[in-house]
C-alpha cells in the first residue's frame, strides 16, 4: 500500500502519496512551479530544469518534476536563487535558438514566451548563437521549425507513449541535439507518422505547428492528454 507522507512546501503543510513527485504535490496544493518539459499525462524526464527546487539537507537543486516526495521534506520553490537560475535558463534557451516571437505562429500563446514574461526576463545577457536550422515543411499538414525547439521532448514522449507510433526521437548531443522524425528523414516521408497531430498540440512553442497558419494564429490544445491518459489507466 502506498503511504501518505507529510512535508512542507513554501511553508505550507502538504500531504501526498509517497509515489508522487514534488511537482504533483505542489500543484495539488495550488503552488505553481515554472516548467516546460513536464506535462500531465506524460512520463517526466527532467529535461528543461526550470522546475528546480531547493530541498533542505540537499546541497543540489533538484527538478520538482522527477523528485519523489518524502516524509518530513522541506521544499522551497520560489527563492531568489531559484528565480535567478530560472531566468538564466530561459535566457539560454532564447540565445541557443532563433526565437523571433513577432513572426511566430504562437506569438501571444507560447509557453516559453509566457515564462519569460512571468519570470521578468527583459534582456538576454549572453550572446545569441544564431544557429542555421532548416524548417521541415515536407509533411502535408504540419511543419517543424527547429529554430523554436527547446528540446523538451514532449513530442517524442506523446508520440511514443500515447500514440504508440514513436516517430519522433532525439539526435546528437549538446548543442547539436535535435528532434528528428524516423531515422532523420523528412517528416513527409515518414512511414510511422499517423498524422494524429498530438505532437503539434503538446509542443510548448511554435516549433511544431499546423501549416497555413499566419502569425499569432495558432492555439495549442494539450488538455486532451490528461483525459486520454486517465481513461487508459482505467482500462476503458
Amino acid at each position, binding site marked *: 500500500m502506498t503511504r501518505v507522507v507529510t512535508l512542507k512546501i513554501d511553508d505550507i503543510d502538504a500531504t501526498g502519496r509517497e509515489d508522487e513527485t514534488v511537482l504533483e504535490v505542489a500543484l495539488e496544493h495550488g503552488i505553481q512551479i515554472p516548467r516546460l518539459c513536464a506535462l500531465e499525462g506524460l512520463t517526466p524526464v527532467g529535461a528543461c530544469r526550470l522546475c528546480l527546487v531547493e530541498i533542505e539537507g540537499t546541497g543540489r537543486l533538484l527538478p520538482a518534476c522527477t523528485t519523489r516526495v518524502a516524509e518530513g521534506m522541506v521544499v522551497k520553490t520560489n527563492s531568489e536563487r531559484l528565480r535567478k537560475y530560472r531566468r538564466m535558463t530561459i535566457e539560454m534557451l532564447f540565445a541557443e535558438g532563433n526565437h523571433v516571437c513577432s513572426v511566430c505562429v504562437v506569438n501571444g500563446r507560447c509557453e516559453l514566451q509566457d515564462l519569460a514574461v512571468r519570470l521578468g526576463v527583459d534582456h538576454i545577457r549572453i550572446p545569441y548563437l544564431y544557429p542555421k536550422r532548416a*524548417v521541415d515543411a515536407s509533411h502535408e499538414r504540419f511543419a517543424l521549425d527547429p529554430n523554436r525547439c527547446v528540446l523538451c521532448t514532449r513530442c517524442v514522449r506523446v508520440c511514443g507513449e500515447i500514440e504508440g507510433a514513436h516517430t519522433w526521437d532525439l539526435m546528437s548531443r549538446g548543442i547539436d541535439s535535435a528532434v528528428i522524425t524516423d531515422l532523420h528523414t523528412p517528416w513527409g516521408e515518414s512511414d510511422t507518422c499517423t498524422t494524429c497531430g498530438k505532437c503539434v498540440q503538446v509542443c510548448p512553442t511554435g516549433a511544431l505547428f499546423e*501549416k497555413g497558419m499566419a*502569425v499569432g*494564429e495558432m492555439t495549442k490544445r494539450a488538455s486532451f492528454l490528461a483525459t486520454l491518459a486517465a481513461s487508459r489507466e482505467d482500462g476503458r
Partner: protein
Amino acid sequence: MAQRIVIDPVTRIEGHAKITIQLDDAGEVADAHFHVTQVRGFEKFVEGRPFHEMPSLMARICGICPVSHLVASAKACDELLAVEIPETATKLRQILNLAQMIQSHALSFFYLSSPDLLLGMDEVPEKRSLFGVAEADPVLARDGVRLRQIGQTIIELLGGKRIHPGWVVPGGVNAPLSEDARDAMLAMIPEGLDIARRTLEWYRTVLPYFEDEIATFANVKTLFMGLTNAENTLEFYDGPVRIINGTGEVIADQLSADHYTEFLQEAVEPWSFLKTPFYRPMGYPDGVYRVGPLARLNIVGRCGTPRADEYLGLFREQDTQSSFHYHTARLIEIMYGLEKVGMLLREPDILSKRTRAVAEPNRSWGVGISEAPRGTLLHHYEIDDNGLITRANLIIATGNNNYAMDRGVYEVAKRYVRGGSLNDGMLNRVESIIRAFDPCLSCSTHAVGQMPMQVELLTPNGEVVEVLKR
C-alpha cells in the same frame, strides 16, 4: 582649392542617408550625390521561411509604412495560393492601405516638411521643426497631429494595433469588420476632410513664395510610373501598371506586375546601396522614372472622388514635372484617401463575415503590387514544393525615385550652394529636396536611422576644414 561638403545624416527624413557636394577650385558645385548608406538584407534572410510568415515578417521592414508591406506581401501570397480572395477582404485591405497613406502623408507633410513651408527655408534650425510650427501656427500643427491620428486609428480599428497588425493574411484578412468599428471610422471622416480642405487652402497661399524652389527642385524630365484602373482614376491596391513620359504621353500601359522583369531593371551606382530601377526598353538612365504622389496624379485622368477632383486643378495648373509638387499631390491624395475610405465603408457587404480564402499553395511564384504612400511597391516570392521561400525580390517605392533624388540634390546644390559663404539655409534646401520625395530609406535599404545633422567641409584628400553642427 577643391572641397567636398558632406551632409550626414540628412535630417527630417525616414531612415539614414548622406549627401556629398563636391566643390571645384572656384568654390562652385562640381557634382553632388545622394548616398543611402545602409543594408539590411531582408531578401536574404527570409529564404527558407514558410510563406505564411511573409506578410508579418516583411512588415518589419518599416515602422512607418508596415501596412504597405503587409498588403503587397499578402497579395504576393494570394498569388501563391492561386485563389481569388473574398471581395470584402479586398475592400478591407484597401481601407487599411488608404489609412496608411493618410497617416504617412500627414507625417511627411506636417511633421517633416511644414517647418520649411511655413517658416521658410532660412529659418534657424532650432525653430525648424513641428514645435516651431506649433508656436507659429498652432492650428496647422494640431491639424497635422489629428490627421495622422485619424489614419492610425483606422489602422488600429481594423488590424487591432497601429504598428504591425497581424490581421492581413494570405487569402484575405483574419477577422471581419464590426459594426462599431465601422461607425467609429465613419465618424472621423468629416473632421479629416475639413482638415484636408483647410490645409489645401493654406497651402495655396504659400505656394507663390516657393517659385524659385519649384523651378529647381528636381525639375528633371523623367518618366512616371504608377497603378491605374479601368475608370482611369487613382488606384492604390491593384491594377495594371502605366508609364508616361515627361510630356504626359502614355508610353506603356496595361503592364502586368507578373511580368515586371520584362519592363523593369535595376541599376547599381557606386555611391549608394540603394538600387535604381528603370524602364527596361529605354535603358539607363533614359528609362528612369519617378513614382509616388506626383507620379500618380500625373498618370491618372482624375482622382475619382469629388473633393479631391476639385483640387486636382490646383495641381494641374502647376509645373507638374517639379518634384516640389510632391507636396501638392500629397495633400490632394489625403483628401482622396479620406473620401474613398468613407465610400468603401458604406459598401453594403463591408461587414460580411466571409473575409478569407483558405487554400494550400498552388503556384510556385507570386508577385504582389500595390501603391505605398511613396509609390509603387512590389514583392515577388518563389517557394518550393513545401511552401518554403526559395527567393524573394522587392522593389521598394523609395528605390524607384533614387535617380531623381540624386539628380535633384545636384540641381539644388548647383543653384543654392556657394563654397565661399556656406550657410545653413543653403544646406537645408538641399535636404528639403529629399524631403519632398518623402523617402523611406529604412524601407528601401531596410535600415533604421537617427538624425542629428553634421556638415563637414573636406579637402579632396579628406582633410576636414570646417564642421557645421546643428
